[in-house]
C-alpha cells in the first residue's frame, strides 16, 4: 500500500459520508454499552430507516464523560446527548434538522474546553472496527511516510525531539529508550506493547485499545521500523475481552492491505504482531515479569540490569512501551517533534490521558496538556465533588502512587511535580476522595492490593506488605499503639528501598503520602480510637464502657 492509495481510501470514505446529512455517533465503550447503548444503536438505526432521512448511525469508542452515558453525539452540529435510552431514539431522529432534544442535551463545554486531544483524537469519531474510518483520519499515513521518507535514525530523532516520556508510569524518555534498542546488536529484536493495565480505577489503555486499536498498531510498526525489529507482541490482560477482540480484528484488517506483514509498502521492512493474554497478575505490568509471561514462564520480575533494551524477550533486545505511549507516536511522526514539544510543561511534554473516578461529578476519560493544575482537572473538567461534600484528596498513580491533599491542588501535573509531592504520574488513574473517606482505610486498601498482587519472589515485598497490612488493620480497628506506627514507618522504608521491582518499591507510597499529609487521622485512630471520617468501625474500649453491675 502507498500513501496515494491511503488518500484514495480516505477520499472514498469522505464521499460515502457525504451521502448522509447527519451522523449519529453512539458511544459503545464498556460504560455506555453496560447501560444499553447496544439496544439504543439498534433503535436509532430503525428510527433512521423509518424516518427516511439520510442518517448514518455509527458506533464509536469512548467519548469521555462515562458517568453521563449512554452518550450520543449528532454531527455536524456536535450536539451531545446524555443518559440516552432506546426510547429516546425516535425523538433524536425526529429532531434532526430542527431544534435538538432539550431534555437530553448536556452542556459539557467546560469539560471539553480545557482538554487537548492527541491520543483520543479519534475516540468518539470513528468506528473502531473499520480500518477505513481510521485511514480517513490520517491513519497509517505516519507509518508510510516514515517508511518512504525517513531513516530509522530520523524516526528516533523525531521522537527524542518531541520530549515524549513513557506513559506507563516511570516516565522514562521514549526517544532514549528507542535509541538504546536501535543501537543494540543482533538481527532479531522485538517490540512489545504493555496493555496489562491493572491499577484500580484506571481504564485509559482499555479505551484506547477498544476505541482506536489501529493507532496502537501503527505506533508499534513505526517503533519497529525505528529500532529494527520484525516481530511485535501486544500483551493485553484477559479481563479486557472487547479490547482483545478489537485488536484481533484490527490486526487482520491491517494485514490484508499489507500494512503489516512482509515488505510493507514495497520496502524491505517486515513486521507483524501477535497478541498475548495476561492471566490476571498485576505484577505482569512490570516489564521483566511481562517478558517472562510472554515467554510462557511464571510472571516474576528479574533484577535489572540487564535492561530489556539489551536483553529482553528470549534474551534479544526488546522495546517495551505502554499503550498510550504508542498511541502518541503516529501524531508525533505526522506533525513533527516540535509540535508535540510545544505542548505541556518544561520536562513533561504533550498530553496525558487520565481516568477520573471516585467522588467526582464527571467520571470518565479526560486528556489534558501536561502542566495543567490539578484543581482545573478536578473542579472544572471533573465538575467538582458531588453531593455537597468537600474535597479531601486525590490519589494518582494507582497503588504505586500517593494521595495529594487539597492544599496542593494548584500543583501543575507533571512527572517531577507529582514525584516531589510524594506521588507518581503512574499510568493515569485519578481517584478523587471527599470527606467521607478515611485516609488510613484508603492506605489499607492499596496495601491490601499490593499484598495480594505481590509475586512473592522477594522478601521485603512478600512479607513486608503483609506485615504493613496487619499493622494498618490494627490501626483501623483502634488496637494499635504508637510503637506500631513507628514500626510501620520503618517497614515502609525497607520495603521501598529493598524490594526487587517497582511493585514493592512503590507499594509504601499510599502509606507514606497519607502519613505525610493526614498524620492526624492515624493519631486519632491510635490515641483516641476514633475514625474522623466515620468509616472504620472501632469498638469502644472496654475501660470506657459503663461498668456492668453483676447481680450476685
Amino acid at each position, binding site marked *: 500500500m502507498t500513501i496515494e492509495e491511503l488518500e484514495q481510501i480516505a477520499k472514498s470514505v469522505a464521499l460515502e459520508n457525504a451521502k448522509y446529512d447527519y451522523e449519529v455517533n453512539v458511544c459503545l465503550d464498556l460504560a455506555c454499552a453496560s447501560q444499553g447503548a447496544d439496544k439504543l444503536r439498534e433503535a436509532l438505526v430503525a428510527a433512521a430507516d423509518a424516518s427516511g432521512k439520510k442518517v448514518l448511525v455509527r458506533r464509536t469508542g469512548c467519548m469521555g464523560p462515562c458517568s453521563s452515558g449512554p452518550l450520543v453525539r449528532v454531527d455536524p452540529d456536535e450536539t451531545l446527548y446524555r443518559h440516552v435510552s432506546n426510547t429516546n431514539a425516535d425523538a433524536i431522529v425526529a429532531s434532526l434538522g430542527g431544534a435538538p432534544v432539550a431534555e437530553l442535551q448536556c452542556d459539557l463545554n467546560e469539560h471539553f474546553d480545557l482538554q487537548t486531544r492527541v491520543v483520543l483524537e479519534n475516540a468518539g469519531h470513528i468506528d473502531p472496527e473499520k480500518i477505513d474510518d481510521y485511514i480517513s483520519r490520517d491513519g497509517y499515513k505516519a507509518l508510510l511516510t516514515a517508511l518512504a521518507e525517513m531513516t530509522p535514525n530520523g524516526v528516533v530523532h523525531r521522537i527524542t525531539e518531541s520530549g515524549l516520556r513513557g506513559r506507563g508510569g516511570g516516565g522514562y524518555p521514549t526517544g532514549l529508550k528507542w535509541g538504546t534498542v536501535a543501537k543494540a546488536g543482533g538481527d532479531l529484536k522485538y517490540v512489545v506493547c504493555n496493555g496489562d493495565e491493572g491499577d484500580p480505577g484506571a481504564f485509559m489503555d482499555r479505551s484506547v485499545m477498544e476505541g482506536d486499536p489501529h493507532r496502537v498498531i501503527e505506533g508499534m510498526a513505526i517503533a519497529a521500523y525505528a529500532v529494527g525489529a520484525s516481530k511485535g507482541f501486544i500483551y493485553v490482560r484477559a479481563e479486557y475481552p472487547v479490547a482483545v477482540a478489537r485488536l484481533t480484528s484490527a490486526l487482520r484488517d491491517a494485514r490484508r492491505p499489507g500494512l503489516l506483514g512482509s515488505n510493507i509498502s514495497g520496502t524491505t521492512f517486515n513486521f507483524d504482531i501477535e497478541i498475548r493474554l495476561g492471566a490476571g497478575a498485576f505484577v505482569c505490568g512490570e516489564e521483566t515479569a511481562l517478558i517472562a509471561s510472554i515467554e510462557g514462564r511464571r510472571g516474576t520480575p528479574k*533484577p535489572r540490569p540487564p535492561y530489556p533494551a539489551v536483553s529482553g524477550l528470549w534474551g534479544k533486545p526488546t522495546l517495551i512501551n505502554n499503550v498510550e505511549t504508542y498511541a502518541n507516536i503516529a501524531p508525533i511522526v505526522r506533525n513533527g517533534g516540535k509540535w508535540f514539544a510545544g505542548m505541556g510543561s518544561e520536562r513533561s511534554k504533550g498530553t496525558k490521558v487520565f481516568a477520573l473516578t471516585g467522588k467526582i461529578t464527571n467520571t470518565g476519560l479526560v486528556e489534558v496538556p501536561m502542566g495543567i493544575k490539578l484543581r482545573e482537572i478536578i473542579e472544572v473538567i471533573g465538575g467538582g465533588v458531588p453531593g455537597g461534600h468537600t474535597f479531601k484528596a486525590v490519589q494518582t498513580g494507582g497503588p504505586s502512587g500517593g494521595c495529594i491533599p487539597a492544599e496542593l491542588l494548584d500543583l501543575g501535573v507533571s512527572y517531577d511535580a507529582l514525584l516531589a509531592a510524594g506521588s507518581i504520574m503512574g499510568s493515569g488513574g485519578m481517584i478523587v476522595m471527599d470527606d467521607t473517606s478515611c485516609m488510613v482505610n484508603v492506605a489499607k486498601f492499596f496495601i491490601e492490593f499490593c*499484598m*495480594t498482587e505481590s509475586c512473592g519472589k522477594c522478601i521485603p515485598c512478600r512479607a513486608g506488605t503483609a506485615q504493613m497490612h496487619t499493622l494498618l488493620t490494627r490501626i483501623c480497628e483502634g488496637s494499635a499503639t504508637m510503637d506500631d506506627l513507628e*514500626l510501620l514507618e*520503618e517497614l515502609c522504608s525497607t520495603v521501598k528501598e529493598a524490594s526487587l521491582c517497582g511493585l514493592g518499591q512503590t507499594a509504601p507510597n499510599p502509606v507514606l503520602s497519607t502519613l505525610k499529609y493526614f498524620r492526624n487521622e492515624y493519631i486519632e485512630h491510635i490515641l483516641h480510637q476514633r475514625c474522623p471520617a466515620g468509616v472504620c468501625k472501632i469498638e469502644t474500649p472496654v475501660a470506657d464502657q459503663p461498668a456492668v453491675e453483676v447481680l450476685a
Partner: protein
Amino acid sequence: MSEAVDVKTLQINGHEVSALRGQTILQVARENDIDIPTLCHLDGLSDVGACRLCLVEIKGSNKLLPACVATVYEGMEVTTDTERLQKHRKTILELLFAERNHICSVCVSNGHCELQSLAQQEGVTHVRFPYRNPELTVDASHERFTVDHNRCVLCTRCVRVCAEVEGAHVWDVMGRGINSTIITDLNDNWGESSCTRCGKCVQVCPTGALFDKSKIGSDHPKYPDFLPYLNEMREAQ
C-alpha cells in the same frame, strides 16, 4: 588492551580490589574475604536476587544493588555494611521469622541453619513484627525426604537445583505473594511426583524445610559444596 586482560579496579569498603569484567560484586568481595550476607544465592546455581540480604550501596547512586547479580565496573565504590544496610538486613530477617513457623528448638536443622546463622550474625535478638502463625502442611509422602512448609523461606534453591543441575524440574512455586509455596510437579504429593530421588534439593535447602527422614532426631548438617565441583567437572567433559 586486549579482551583477555580486561581487568577492573574498584573499591569495596575502602579496599582497592581488582576484578575481571563481568564478575559480580559478591564474587569479588568473597575473593577478598569481604563478607556480604546471602540467602538465596548459592555457588553453582543461577542468581535470582530475591532475598535482598546482599544489597550494597554504590557511591553516586541512591539505589541499593543486589551484590549477587550486579556486575563490577571500573572505579566503582562499594560499601557493604552501612547502618542503612544493616537495618534493612535485620528487618528482612525479622520478616522471615514472622512469616512462617520457625521454631529452632524443634527443628532438624538447629545449629546448621543458614537462617539461624544469619540472624546471629546480623544481631537479630528479637522480632518486632507480629508472628503470622500460618497453618501450613508437612508432606512426608516421599520415602526418603520430607518437606515442612513451616520452615521454608522461599529462596527457590530447590527449584533451581532441580531444574538447572538435576534437569528434572520437579520443584516449582505456586501461588502469589504471602501465599506462595513450593510444590512438586503440579502440586502433587512429593512421593507420587516425578522426583528422581537424587536429594540435591535437600542438600541445598538453607533451613530445615527439606530434610532427610533418616536424620530426624540426629544432627542434620547439609553439604551444598558439591555443586561448584559438579558444575566444573561437567564443563570439563
